[in-house]
């Protein structure tokens, strides 16, 4: 009977092309949506690799056209650190976690390259403030003041890109490899390797990162500074006021704003979720469309094939057998559509597209396949029952 169905479908290929392409496209769309969902979900359950709770972001800015000398900035940090409720303070670059701005670059070591690395300026308190877990070596400390080279802590994924498995990373030199020709290539000595971090938000994957030590007491001047503060839990507006006052008390020229990292995280969530929600809505819309299409085509097919149904009943098919035949035809078509879709879908993991893990693609394929079968069987169910219930005598009478 399956051979018979194949022959029937093949001979009817012109009218089945529509149905087949609908199944194919809905498979591809479902696969895309499922891939994104799985990928986001997979990222979501990964640890951030740092603690962002009870961390506040201070942006301190000098007046228009003026600069902030580092000694004065250090004074501010000391004063704020001394406030009751403040546990840790660190000076860093503008690209704090969950912000929309990043500082990207490539790093190289010999012939090995790490591309699109997130670069952060960090002082000795940055690692402890975020609770970064060091897998090798250590975080920066005061003993590094004597170092003759710029120092860096790298994340585990940067390490994997630049070092072999058995190699020690600590003490080795890596080279910043800025293709855009901003700075001259600069060599950093690795002092530690930290766990992977996901600083771009809840749904982002871990990004290779490098923290470059901010030399203390340098002579450079800043136009604005980003300072992160870890506070005791339960701190709120009063402490924020006191921080603002403390900075203002030291110099009237500077202004301060305080934000919670948790707010930054939520702010980042919205623009990330919006396209996901939009895509899911489009996906649902398409699936409903396809379902209605399948339903309609089947319904039409059956009304077109009443005489055939009558004949088959006359020569020995039961009502249930007719229902099974129509369901079977849809499932054979679905299988063909899913196979064609899978052929396309499997290219993504094979080509390593979009840096998404192969397992995510495979899970998405399984999910899309399952959904398509459920969809097809669901849509075919009612029309098949209708076909099963057709009275043979009446169907044969019509012409």
């Amino acid at each position: 009977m399956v051979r018979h169905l194949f022959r029937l479908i093949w001979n009817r290929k012109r009218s089945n092309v529509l149905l087949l392409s609908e199944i194919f496209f809905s498979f591809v769309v479902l696969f895309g949506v499922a891939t994104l969902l799985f990928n986001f979900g997979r990222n979501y359950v990964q640890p951030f690799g740092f603690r962002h709770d009870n961390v506040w972001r201070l942006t301190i800015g000098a007046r228009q056209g003026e600069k902030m000398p580092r000694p004065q900035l250090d004074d501010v940090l000391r004063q704020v650190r001394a406030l009751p409720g403040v546990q840790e303070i660190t000076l860093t670059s503008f690209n704090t976690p969950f912000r929309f701005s990043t500082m990207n670059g490539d790093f190289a070591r010999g012939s090995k390259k790490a591309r699109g690395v997130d670069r952060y300026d960090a002082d000795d308190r940055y690692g402890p403030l975020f609770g970064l877990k060091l897998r090798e070596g250590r975080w920066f400390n005061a003993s590094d003041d004597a170092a003759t080279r710029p120092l860096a802590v790298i994340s585990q994924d940067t390490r994997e890109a630049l070092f072999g498995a058995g190699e020690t990373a600590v003490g080795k030199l890596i080279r910043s490899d800025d293709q855009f020709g901003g700075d001259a290539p600069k060599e950093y000595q690795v002092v530690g390797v930290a766990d992977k971090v996901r600083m771009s938000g809840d749904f982002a994957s871990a990004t290779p990162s490098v923290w470059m030590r901010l030399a203390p007491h340098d002579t450079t001047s800043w136009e604005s500074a980003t300072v992160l503060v870890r506070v005791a839990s339960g701190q709120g507006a009063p402490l924020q006021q006191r921080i603002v006052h403390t900075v203002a008390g030291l110099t009237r020229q500077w202004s301060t704003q305080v934000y919670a990292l948790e707010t930054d995280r939520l702010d980042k969530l919205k623009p990330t979720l919006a396209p996901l929600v939009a895509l899911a809505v489009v996906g649902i819309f398409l699936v409903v469309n396809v379902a209605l299409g399948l339903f309609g085509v089947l319904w039409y097919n059956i009304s077109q094939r009443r005489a055939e149904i009558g004949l088959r009943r006359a020569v020995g098919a039961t009502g249930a057998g007719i229902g099974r035949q129509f369901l079977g035809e849809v499932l054979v078509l679905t299988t063909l559509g899913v196979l064609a879709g899978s052929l396309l879908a499997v290219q993504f993991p094979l080509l390593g597209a979009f840096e998404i893990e192969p397992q995510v693609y495979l899970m998405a394929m399984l999910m899309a396949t399952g959904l398509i079968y459920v969809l097809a069987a669901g849509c075919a169910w009612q029309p098949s029952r209708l076909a099963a219930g057709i009275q043979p005598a009446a169907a044969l009478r019509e012409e």
Partner: protein
Amino acid sequence: MENLLATSTDTRAQLPLNGPAAEETPVLQLTNIEKVYQTSTIETVALNRVNLTINRGEFVSIMGPSGCGKSTLLSLMGLLDEPTSGTIAVDGRLVTSFSDRELAAIRNLKIGFVFQSYHLINDLSVVDNVEVPLLYRPGMGGKERRKRALAALDKVGLSARTGHFPSQLSGGQRQRVAIARALAGGPEIILADEPTGNLDSVMGEEIMDLLLGLNRQDGVTIVMVTHDEHQALKTQRVVRFFDGSQVG
């Protein structure tokens, strides 16, 4: 063959059948059949108190004006529909309480249908069309099906056209395919509803000869609805209907 011109209705059909020999068991026996079509507006009595016995090896013609219930009678004989009242026995077994599954099996094994409009499946080749009834026969393999289908096509003289599609055939050829399909399953009885109704007289004659041959040489029982007196005269018996009732 001597009986060729006999046209009298078999009045013995209503005789009680108490313990006849196996050979004498009628292929089909309809007793007190009534068929009423109920639609929202009207009630049509298509058949009224019909008693009819079809004996093994007979070739029976059914005649009557349009709308008198001939097709209805044939679909009841073919177990495609149920009578409103009355009983139908196939090979001496009452089928009144049979399930859909059992009825389908009897249709498949014992009955072959031929229709005025052929009812071939346009998307299947000639040989695939002839194989359709065999698809519903449990346990029959593809090779056996093909063998039987080809033999049936040989019998109707269409061996050369097995790969054609129905649209590539003439009306007469299509009806031959339909007869081959009816024959493929080796039925005891063929029910033909105006098999020559769509054909010109020459082709109609060919089909009629084919059916006569099947009846005489192969002993297939045939019940045929026809409007053609000339054809009816060639059969052993003519049953006439008027307005749902037998009239002679």
